[in-house]
């Protein structure tokens, strides 16, 4: 199958004088054209780090390893100069906190038009016209072009940020918890909007969230991360019908009952391991109810286990242990 993005063994390590934190410990996944891939996991499991690594917008203290191909080009080793031409044209990102992600002293219009002027050499006039039609597309009155970020509502700001990300018609769009700060109504509107845009622009989307139920609404496939690693990848339906990894099962908790939607996710006792350095063996072992001797010795690889599914667990076949 044709792949628009394929990531191999992506690693992110933050180095401070005292410690090295391995925030992403070698993850691989790929994205088909028009696909929406969910990236799930608790806060701090490395979702933002992984996404930022693909954009190459990590701080200098971070080290990136592995490979990532977009349309045949390996982007993790590109010189900065080349990479700046890939950003926003091939791969763009919508950030978690739109308020902070926007420059408070520049108009919305300018901020949407800016990449058009830089990448596509649009003259200012034309870039602003294009910005206006992008705003209209995300259902913001184009008159708002000359507004400053603080003059918009939270939902509008997030839609403006989406419009900004679409400016150069990227192949891949990463949305990092784009609705976390918003209320449920607005959240639903934004998700609808993203789905429409995917169809209209032929986008491929990576949608990051800690909320599996939210991901179920929008994603074709979901990759579950734990402590810097992908532990399970599955089509959305399959994952909810039959989660294989003990962590996924715990996350879904009562939701596993077919067709029934639980209101809350089960909270899992215990905390993720410290990643400086990560412990040997399976990282989930301290919190796992299927843990066995093998788990503490070797790290389980992410292996194919049937149609379109992969899981990283030594005991995924094991019977349910009621919790």
């Amino acid at each position, binding site marked *: 199958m044709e792949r628009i993005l394929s990531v191999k063994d992506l690693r992110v390590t933050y180095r401070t004088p005292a410690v090295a934190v391995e925030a992403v410990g070698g993850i691989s996944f790929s994205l088909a054209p028009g696909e929406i891939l969910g990236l799930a996991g608790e806060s701090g499991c490395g979702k933002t780090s992984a996404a930022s690594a693909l954009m190459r917008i*990590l701080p200098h203290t971070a080290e990136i390893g592995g490979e990532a191909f977009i349309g045949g080009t390996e982007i993790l080793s590109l010189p900065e100069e080349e990479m700046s031409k890939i950003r926003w044209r091939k791969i763009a990102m919508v950030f978690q906190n739109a308020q902070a992600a926007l420059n408070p002293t520049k108009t919305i219009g300018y901020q949407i038009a800016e990449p058009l002027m830089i990448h596509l050499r649009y003259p200012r006039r034309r870039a602003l016209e294009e910005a206006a039609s992008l705003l209209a597309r995300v259902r913001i009155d184009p008159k708002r072009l000359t507004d400053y970020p603080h003059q918009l509502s939270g939902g509008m700001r997030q839609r403006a940020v989406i419009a900004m990300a679409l400016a150069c018609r990227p192949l891949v769009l990463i949305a990092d918890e784009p609705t976390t700060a918003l209320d449920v109504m607005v959240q639903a509107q934004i998700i609808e909007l993203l789905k429409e845009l995917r169809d209209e622009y032929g986008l491929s989307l990576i949608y990051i969230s800690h909320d599996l139920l939210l991901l179920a609404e929008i994603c074709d496939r979901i990759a579950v991360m734990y402590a810097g690693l992908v532990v399970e990848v599955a089509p959305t339906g399959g994952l909810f019908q039959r989660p294989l990894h003990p962590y996924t099962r715990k996350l879904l908790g009562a939701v596993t009952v077919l067709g029934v939607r639980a209101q809350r996710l089960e909270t899992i006792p215990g905390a993720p391991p410290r990643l400086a350095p990560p412990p040997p063996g399976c990282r989930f072992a301290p919190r796992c109810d299927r843990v066995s001797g093998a788990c503490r010795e070797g790290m389980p690889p992410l292996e194919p286990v049937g149609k379109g599914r992969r899981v990283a667990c030594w005991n995924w076949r094991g019977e349910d242990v009621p919790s």
Partner: protein
Amino acid sequence: MAEIKEAFRTSPFGKAGLAIVGIFIILAIVGPYIAPYDPWKTADEIEDILAPPSWAHPLGTDELGRDILSQVIHGTRITLIIGLSAAAIAVVVGTVVGVTAGYFGGVLDAMLMRITDSFLSMPFIVLAIVIVSLLGRSLGNIILAIGLVQWTQAARITRAQTLSIKERVFVLRARALGAGPFYIMRRHILPNVLPLVFANMTLVTSLAILSEAFLSFLGLGDPTKFSWGIIIRYAFETGAVSIGAWWYFLPAGICIMLVVLGFSFISNTLDEALNPKLRRGQVVI
């Protein structure tokens, strides 16, 4: 506290600042015992007048044949005493003003802040010049003058900090339990503003040392003592510049620069440790 230790452990500037200041403090303490000559002792021989550095006088002599090295060593103590005492006065005044203004708020706050603004707008060197010219050129008056013009920063810093602390839960609870304002200030506010006050004091010390040098250079130093500023003033008056007697003013100026730099390195390191925004944030571009 842990952050401060960590900052000094990881910052070369912090270490350099501590080292420089430490060395000069030791010199200030033992100076008078290790100085080769009495700094006031004049020479009898004409060739010892404004003599360039030699084995007998490693930093040469002045127009009266007095040993410059001994003057500089003695000057360390005077300069540091002026710098540290003036800074102490400044932060005490500033903290009292700032905490009072922040804690009581209202009209008192507005009044104190306008007074702070007025002092901030008056060029402190001119104010200090006026105070010393009117009071007389003694060590105590110089310290007082510098202290009384440098308190504004401490006032602003402690006021801001007090404003944020007094709304915290433990203070509100203490107040609800009937604790008086002075008890709360002593128990809750002061411990929280002290690190900032201390950081500010290191910066004010370097400003005070510079101010002393400026006052001395303008002829307002204490004529009965040797400070580094006074040595440079004497050199200027004597015309050391035009006759090329570099040894007369170079060492004292280098000492001023090093000490001021040392204190400002310490102050910067403390600032980075105490400013959460600088500590946490990371630059991506």
